[in-house]
C-alpha cells in the first residue's frame, strides 16, 4: 500500500490523465483501474501500474476513429502551411476554399448522414478560415507591395500566415465536434480516483 504523499499524488495525476484520455464510453474501466491502484503492494508497483493505466487509456483513445472534423482540420491546416511556403502563392489565395470544398465533398459523398452533418460543421469551419485567409492574403500582398525589398518582413508575414492558418482551422474544426454532456457528467461523478485523492497518506491499514 502506498504511503508516500508524492507517489500518491503522482498516481492521482496519472490516473486523472488516463480518465481524460480514455474514451467516455469506457469510463467504467477507468474507474476499475483507479480502484486497483489502492491495492498496489508498494509505491513502485503503484506508479508502474498507474503508468500502464495511462498507456491503456492512450491505446484505447488511439483505437477510436478520429473525428472527421479533426481530419479535415489537419489536412486543411497542412494545406495552409504548404500554401504559405510556396513562393508567390499569395497570388492564388482562392486555392484554400476550393481545396476545402473538394475535401468536404469527398466526405459528404462517402459517409453516412450523421457523418455528413458533422462534415458540414467542418465545411463551415473551412469557409470561415477561407475568408480569414483570403483577408490575410490580401493584407500580405499589400504589405509585400509596401515593403518591397524587405525580404525578412515578408518572410515573417508568410510564416505567421501559415502557422496561424493551421492553428485556427484545426481549432475551429475541433470546436465543431459535438460536446457531449456525458463527458462532464462522468467527470463529476464520484470515482475511485476521487477516493484515492481524498484518502490521507498515512492512514493505517
Amino acid at each position, binding site marked *: 500500500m502506498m504511503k508516500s504523499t508524492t507517489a500518491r499524488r503522482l498516481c492521482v495525476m496519472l490516473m486523472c490523465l488516463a480518465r481524460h484520455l480514455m474514451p467516455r464510453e469506457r469510463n467504467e*474501466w477507468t*474507474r*476499475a483501474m483507479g480502484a486497483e491502484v489502492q491495492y498496489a503492494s508498494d509505491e513502485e508497483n503503484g506508479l508502474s*501500474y498507474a*503508468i500502464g493505466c495511462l498507456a491503456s487509456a492512450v491505446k484505447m483513445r488511439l483505437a477510436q476513429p478520429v473525428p472527421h472534423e479533426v481530419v479535415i482540420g489537419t489536412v486543411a491546416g497542412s494545406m495552409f502551411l504548404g500554401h504559405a511556403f510556396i513562393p508567390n502563392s499569395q497570388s492564388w489565395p482562392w486555392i484554400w476554399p476550393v481545396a476545402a470544398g473538394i475535401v468536404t465533398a469527398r466526405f459528404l459523398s462517402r459517409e453516412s448522414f450523421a457523418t455528413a452533418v458533422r462534415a458540414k460543421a467542418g465545411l463551415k469551419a473551412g469557409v470561415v478560415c477561407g475568408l480569414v485567409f483570403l483577408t490575410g492574403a490580401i493584407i500580405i500582398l499589400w504589405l509585400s507591395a509596401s515593403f518591397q525589398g524587405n525580404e525578412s518582413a515578408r518572410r515573417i508575414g508568410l510564416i505567421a500566415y501559415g502557422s496561424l492558418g493551421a492553428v485556427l482551422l484545426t481549432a475551429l474544426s475541433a470546436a465543431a465536434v459535438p460536446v457531449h454532456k456525458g463527458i462532464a457528467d462522468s467527470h463529476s461523478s464520484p470515482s475511485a480516483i476521487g477516493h484515492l485523492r481524498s484518502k490521507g497518506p498515512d492512514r493505517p491499514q
Partner: protein
Amino acid sequence: MPRKPNTSVHARAVLAQLSARPREWQYGYDLLKRTGINSGTLYPLLIRLHDQGLLEAEWQAAEVEGRPPRHAYRLTANGLMFAAAQRARDVDPVGLLPDLARS
C-alpha cells in the same frame, strides 16, 4: 494477413489464468501479478474480451474497510469454451491428434 483474435501470448496467459478458476471472480491487480503482464497491456485486453462477450465483469465491495469497490472479472460460458479451444490448439496446433487416434 490479419492476426487471429486473442491468440497473442498475453491473451493466452490471461485466458489461462481466468479459466484455471472458472467460478472465481478475479481482480485486475491480481491478474497482473499472476500473469506478469503490465497494466498497459492487461486492461485493453480485458476490455476487448469483455466487448467480445468472453469476459464478464462486476463491481464488488471491498473486503477491507476504507478501500474502494473492486472491478472483478471471470470468463463467461463462451469465454470458457474459447479458452478450452485455445488450450487444445496449443497442445495440437495443426489438428493432427484426431487423425492419429483414428489411424
